[in-house]
C-alpha cells in the first residue's frame, strides 16, 4: 500500500499558523517578486480570482477584500520539513514529492488503513498545526487519486482508503473520471485516447497492456497497470509537469562524505536544470533532502530544507549554488542512503520579461545554458559537468508583503500577547 499526504492550501495555511486573524479571510500568496498569484486559500478561490493572475490585474474592489502575501519559502520550507519529520516517525519510508506532498511506502505494514490515515492526519494537525489530507491505495497512482477524493470530503479527518483495486467505490470513481486526471496522462495523450474511444480512467485500465505499449508507450501501459493495483511506477517516472521537478536517487552504498554528497547534488542539479530547459520552464524555489536508510540500525536521519532562488531560474549554476548552501546547512555526519533535490513554483520561461526592477535570468545566461545543453547533447553528459561554485551575490527580492521568518530568525519570532 502507498499513501499520498498533501497539505491543504499549504502556503496560505503556513501564513495563517502565525497570523490567526487570517483564518476565514481570503489569502493569496504571490510569486517571487510579487508578480502574480501562485497560491490561494479556499475563500480566495471562491472569489473567482484565477491562479496565476498578475497582481496588478486583480480588480481593485476585490483587492480590498483579500490579503496578499509575498511567498516566504524559508517559512514554508521549515514547516514542510516538520510535517515530514512527524510522518517519518510513524511510517517505514517517506519520500518527499514536492514542498507540500509526500508519498509514504506502507508495504509490509498490516494496519487498519483508516485508523492509520486518521492518526497521521491528527498528528500533523496537532504537532505542526497544518491541515492535511491523505489517500491510501495499492499503488502511487491510485493513492494520488484517493488523495484528491479525500480533499473533496467535508468531514474531518480527510482520509480516503481504497484497500483493493477492485473496491466498488473505486470502480465507480474511475467510471466518472477523465483519463486526463490520472497522474502522468497529459492533454496530448488524453486527446489520442479519446480518439480511440478511451473516455474514462476505467476504460484506460481495461485497455489491453499490449495495445497501450504498441500505440502509446511503456509508461502509459504501466499507468494502466497501476490503476489495476499493480505498483510499477516510481516517483521519478512521473512528475506533475507544471508544478515541480524532483531528482533523487538512492546510493548503491551509504555515503558519509560531504564531498561525495556534493557531487551527487551537482549531478541532480544538472539533470533538474536540463528538465527545466527542455520544458521551457523556470523554478522559483529549490529544496534539498537527505536521508539515511530506515531499515538499518542506528539513528534515522531525515533532513530537508528549502530556499527561494533570487529570481526564477533555469540556470544549472544558479540551482547548484543554492542547493549547495542547503546541503551545507543540513549535512551532519551520518551514512546517507538517499539525496534528492526538488524544484517548486515552475513558470513558463516566456512569462519572465526582464524589467529594470524585477529580477530575471540575464539573456546571456540563457544563451550559456543553451550552449551547455548543446555541448552535453552532442558530446555526452560527461563531456561538460559543473564543478563546485562559490556562494556569492546576495540579491534582494521584491517581497513587499512577506510574513516574518517565524521559525528561523531570532528577530522575527511571532509575538504572543499576555492576557
Amino acid at each position, binding site marked *: 500500500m502507498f499513501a499520498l499526504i498533501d497539505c491543504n492550501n499549504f502556503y496560505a495555511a503556513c501564513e495563517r499558523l*502565525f497570523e*490567526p*486573524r487570517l*483564518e476565514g479571510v481570503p489569502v493569496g500568496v504571490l510569486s517571487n517578486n510579487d508578480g502574480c498569484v501562485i497560491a490561494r486559500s479556499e475563500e480566495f478561490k471562491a472569489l473567482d480570482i484565477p491562479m496565476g493572475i498578475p497582481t496588478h490585474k486583480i480588480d481593485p474592489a476585490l483587492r480590498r477584500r483579500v490579503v496578499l502575501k509575498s511567498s516566504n519559502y524559508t517559512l514554508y520550507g521549515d514547516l514542510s520539513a*516538520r510535517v515530514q*519529520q*512527524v510522518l517519518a*516517525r510513524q511510517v517505514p519510508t517517506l519520500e518527499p514529492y514536492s514542498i507540500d506532498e509526500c508519498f509514504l511506502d506502507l508495504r509490509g505494514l498490516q494496519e487498519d488503513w483508516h485508523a492509520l490515515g486518521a492518526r497521521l492526519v491528527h498528528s500533523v494537525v*496537532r*504537532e*505542526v*498545526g497544518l491541515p492535511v489530507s491523505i489517500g491510501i491505495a495499492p499503488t502511487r497512482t491510485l493513492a494520488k487519486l484517493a488523495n484528491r477524493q479525500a480533499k473533496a470530503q467535508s468531514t474531518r479527518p480527510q482520509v480516503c482508503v481504497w484497500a483493493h483495486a477492485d473496491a466498488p467505490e473505486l470502480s465507480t470513481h474511475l467510471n466518472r473520471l477523465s483519463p486526463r486526471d490520472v497522474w502522468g496522462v497529459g492533454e496530448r495523450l488524453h486527446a489520442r485516447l479519446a480518439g480511440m474511444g478511451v473516455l474514462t480512467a476505467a476504460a484506460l485500465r481495461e485497455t489491453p497492456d499490449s495495445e497501450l505499449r504498441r500505440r502509446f508507450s511503456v509508461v502509459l501501459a504501466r499507468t494502466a497497470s497501476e490503476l489495476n493495483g499493480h505498483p510499477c511506477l516510481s516517483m521519478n517516472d512521473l512528475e506533475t509537469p507544471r508544478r515541480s521537478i524532483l531528482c533523487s536517487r538512492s546510493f548503491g552504498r551509504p555515503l558519509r562524505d560531504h564531498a561525495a554528497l556534493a557531487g551527487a547534488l551537482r549531478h541532480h542539479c544538472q539533470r533538474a536544470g536540463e528538465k527545466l530547459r527542455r520544458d521551457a520552464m523556470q523554478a522559483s524555489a529549490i529544496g534539498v533532502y537527505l536521508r539515511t536508510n530506515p531499515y538499518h540500525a542506528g539513528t534515522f536521519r531525515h533532513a530537508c530544507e528549502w530556499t527561494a532562488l533570487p529570481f526564477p531560474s533555469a540556470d544549472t549554476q544558479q540551482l547548484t549554488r543554492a542547493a549547495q548552501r542547503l546541503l551545507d546547512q543540513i549535512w551532519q555526519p551520518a551514512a546517507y542512503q538517499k539525496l534528492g533535490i526538488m524544484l517548486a513554483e515552475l513558470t513558463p520561461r516566456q512569462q519572465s520579461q526582464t524589467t529594470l526592477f524585477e529580477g530575471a535570468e540575464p539573456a546571456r545566461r540563457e544563451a550559456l545554458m543553451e550552449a551547455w545543453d548543446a555541448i552535453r547533447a552532442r558530446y555526452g553528459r560527461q563531456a561538460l559537468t559543473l564543478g563546485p561554485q562559490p556562494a556569492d551575490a546576495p540579491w534582494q527580492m521584491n517581497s513587499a508583503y512577506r510574513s*516574518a521568518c*517565524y*521559525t528561523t530568525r*531570532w*528577530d*522575527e*519570532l*511571532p*509575538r*504572543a*500577547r*499576555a*492576557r
Partner: protein
Amino acid sequence: MSMTPIALAASTSAPASSDTLPRGASGFPSPADDYREAPLDLHHHLVRRPASTFFMRLEGDDHHHAGLYHGDLLVIDRAISPRPGHWLVAVIDGELSVLRLERRGPQLYLAPSRPGLATLPFEDNDDRLWGVICYAIHALPATGEEPAIPSCSR
C-alpha cells in the same frame, strides 16, 4: 539535581573518535580521553521534539506576578496535551495570546491575568489551543546579555 540524566545520556553516546582528540607531545593518547563526554547542549535540553517545538516572544507584563515578563522567549511544544496549571498560547480574537489553564470544579477555563478580562470556558480539543508553553526564558537584569527586542510587532 536534574543534571544527572543529561550526564548519563551523554556518556552512552558513541565515544568521540580518538583521532579528533589532542594527543600529548609524546604521541600517547591523553589519559583524559576515556572520560570525555559531549558538551551539554541547552537547545537539545529545551527542545525535546524539534518538529512540534516553536519559539515566540511574550508581549506585555500582565503575567509579571507569575514570573513571565515582557520580552521572554517562550518555548512552545504543540505535542504536549494541556493540563490544568499549564500556560498556553491560545488564539483569542484572532491573536496569539498567553493564558493559564485552570480547573474550577469540573470545568476548565482559560484564565487571564489582566484585570477586566473574562475567563473563558475551555473544551476538550478546543480549537483555540495553539500550544503548551514549556519554558519562558529571560536574562536576569543588568547583565546586558538580553537580546534587543524590537518595540512593536511587524
